């Protein structure tokens, strides 16, 4: 009988995905496109924020910012159609029931977009605060939305998501007066996980805070 051997491996489980993500970033850079990976729970307002962002960004800069959206939805086309109605190219990325988008899926989707005129490409990730945090999509920036009705305790439950994001958009700020959501607690908890995180209070319903968020985004893409 052969002896049991201990074989050292020391390999990052996601190394292959990260390599592919680097390829995606190189392709985006060649085309001068900035990709934003937008993540949140279902119903916290990803599509609403995208629509508000399109509106704000277009009114704030001339010449216009070229935009497009990749909609990663489990299987419906509802969100992609909503974006198309706003006059922005949108492609559907079917994750086939998969819980998050990885760099391979993005790499497969990019050829269906003409990247040259696109300055800002927004990836609407699958609604989920767990799995998307783990996977590099090839985006230049990760941003998450937390809506007020979800509660200020979410950094305690989904720490990785808060660590992986450059910015946190707290949406539905118009609900702040109605419940016991404590903005200071949220800030403290999010900053403990990620001291650099930028936090924006936004209401897609009233439009409050959208301008500040859009300004930050425009600075990120160099416009």
């Amino acid at each position: 009988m052969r002896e049991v051997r201990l074989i050292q491996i020391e390999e990052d489980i996601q190394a292959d995905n990260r390599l592919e993500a680097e390829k995606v970033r190189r392709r985006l850079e060649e085309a001068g496109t900035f990709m934003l990976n937008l993540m949140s729970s279902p119903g916290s307002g990803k599509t609403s924020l995208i629509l508000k962002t399109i509106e704000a960004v277009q009114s704030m800069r001339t010449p216009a910012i070229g935009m497009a959206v990749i909609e990663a939805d489990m299987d419906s086309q509802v969100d992609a159609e909503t974006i198309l109605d706003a006059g922005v190219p949108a492609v559907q990325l079917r994750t086939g029931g998969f819980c998050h988008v990885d760099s391979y899926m993005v790499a497969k989707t990019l050829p269906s977009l003409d990247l040259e005129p696109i300055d800002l490409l927004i990836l609407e990730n699958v609604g989920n605060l767990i799995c998307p945090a783990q996977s590099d999509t090839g985006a230049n920036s990760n941003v998450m939305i937390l809506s007020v009705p979800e509660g200020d305790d979410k950094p305690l439950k989904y720490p990785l998501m808060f660590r992986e994001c450059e910015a946190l958009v707290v949406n539905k700020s118009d609900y702040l007066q109605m419940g016991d959501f404590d903005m200071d607690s949220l800030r403290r908890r999010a900053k403990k996980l990620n001291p650099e995180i930028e936090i924006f209070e936004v209401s897609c319903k009233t439009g409050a805070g959208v301008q500040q968020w859009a300004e930050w985004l425009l600075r990120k893409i160099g416009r």
Partner: protein
Amino acid sequence: MHELGITHEILEIVLRYARRHRVTQVSKVLLEIGELSDLEQEWIQHYFDAISRGSVAEGARIEVKKLPCRFFCRQCGNEFVTTLTNDEPLICYGCGSEAVEMISGSEYTVKSMEAT
């Protein structure tokens, strides 16, 4: 669903090393997973059993070692373990400084395997 994709990547790494080391049977796979990373051992094992069938990794036991959040203090050089998911302020246990940085806790690694 998350675990299934991850398990495929784990199996791929394991089989790559099995070929490299001319292994006939993998008996154990050790993963090191940081406290902040999400991974359920039970599901990984379940999926691994299913997708490794017929390979040299069939029947291998998956062991997950959870690594806590470890910090380094830039002020006094102290290293300490703490948890990020509570309301305690994040300061060095030694000197009370806030100038601390995380040095481990988000690992997602196939560490080693036992095989014949």
